[in-house]
């Protein structure tokens, strides 16, 4: 039931944002492998599409196998899945920032990466994933990120479902 509730809530949120004409971009997520075995890594492709009339920043922060410039939400059949607690949270992860800019009507190169670095998918069942990205600066115009704050809402992606089958493999945690 909680899983269904999570699905409904994600769906409602997706509809609400898709009806907002002010969003400068959309986010589409997909996966090449929606069915995995417990213990497998789970991967996402994330693509931004510029639906505004100006250039849009789509900078990637590639940190430990995942683009951290998106927010990731994962639900299983019990509700929200908590993030994996890192073994040494006091030390930062490595990363590299890739500048990215998309013209009106164009798509970004795929990013995303290994979402199972952030969330634990070891338990068999169904998981839903949604990605979001805050709009900052002047409608995400390149170069305005820290100069203008126009209180735009964050943009949410579609949702996808990952099915994890057993037997359950104990998680290799924490990292």
């Amino acid at each position, binding site marked *: 039931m909680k899983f269904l509730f999570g699905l409904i809530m994600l769906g409602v949120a997706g509809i609400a944002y898709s009806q907002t004409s002010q969003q400068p971009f959309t986010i589409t997520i997909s996966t090449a492998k929606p069915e995995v075995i417990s213990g497998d890594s789970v991967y996402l*492709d994330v693509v931004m599409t510029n639906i505004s009339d100006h250039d849009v920043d789509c900078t990637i922060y590639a940190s430990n196998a995942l683009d951290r410039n998106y927010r990731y939400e994962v639900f299983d059949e019990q509700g929200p899945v908590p993030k994996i607690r890192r073994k040494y949270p006091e030390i930062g992860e490595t990363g590299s920032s890739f500048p990215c800019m998309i013209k009106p009507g164009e798509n970004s190169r795929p990013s995303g990466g290994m979402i199972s670095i952030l969330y634990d998918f070891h338990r068999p069942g169904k998981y839903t994933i949604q990605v979001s990205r805050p709009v900052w600066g002047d409608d995400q115009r390149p170069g305005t990120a820290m100069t203008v704050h126009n209180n735009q809402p964050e943009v949410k992606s579609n949702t996808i479902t990952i099915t994890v089958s057993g037997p359950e493999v104990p998680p290799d945690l924490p990292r």
Partner: protein
Amino acid sequence: MRIADYAPTVASAKVKELTDADLKKANITFYWVYPQNDNIPVTYKYCVDIPGADADGKCSLVAKAAFTVSGGGTMTNTPYNQLTIDQLIPCENNVPSGSPGPALVYGNITGSDCIANPGGSWGIFFQPSGAPSNGTYSYVQLINSDTRTLNTISCTSSQGVDLSYPYAGIIPGTNPPQALDAPNFALPSGYAVNRNFNATMFLMWTSSLTGSIPVPIGYQTWGFSGSAQQDSNGNWSATTNGTPGPIGGFVPSSGAQTTDGYTTLQDGYPIWNGAAAETCN
């Protein structure tokens, strides 16, 4: 070298090789993936099972053709000469927030990891040239090794593809696209740190002809090694070991390559089983 397909994802990549059975099918799709100027011979005949006919009567004469596969291309690189301590604005909930903090960077960058500042210097960037004009370049970067120590904590990365396929670190507005990297991490106060990084950047090219697949043009291994330490006032300084940047020269791809010296290649293609990820112990 001819292959049946190459359709990588970030989760895995391998070459689908052409089999003898494929060659006996009525319809066959294959790709010549490396240039060859000396007339590649192709012979062809077909046979029909005609009851009562002798062996010669069932098959056509042999048709012969010779093909030249054009290609070429190379990749140069521009490396930064040292590791630096840069002051980067941290990201909070994916938005730049708070006061800048020290980071050990290969390169010399400013701003925040949430929003790359084009005013900085990347650790290294790559420029392609020389491939036929009727196609597009792309890149694959494989992480060969990446180790850090922070006091007694040891962090090691698995081998794998760097975040995504194709490689996402492209300098905006470059045509042909130039690939960049500037690995970094925030420095935690009270730690002495060092890092050794090694990766290989592959240049790929895809013909604009319908149904084409990416072919490897060649690769360049690169890396850096260094450390950062704090003085009694809490100020950080960086030390660069050796000369960062390219390790060896650009290596043109060929179908005979089974390794780049660090990871396995298949028919000269980069292959992987997932994204490179770090574990600390």
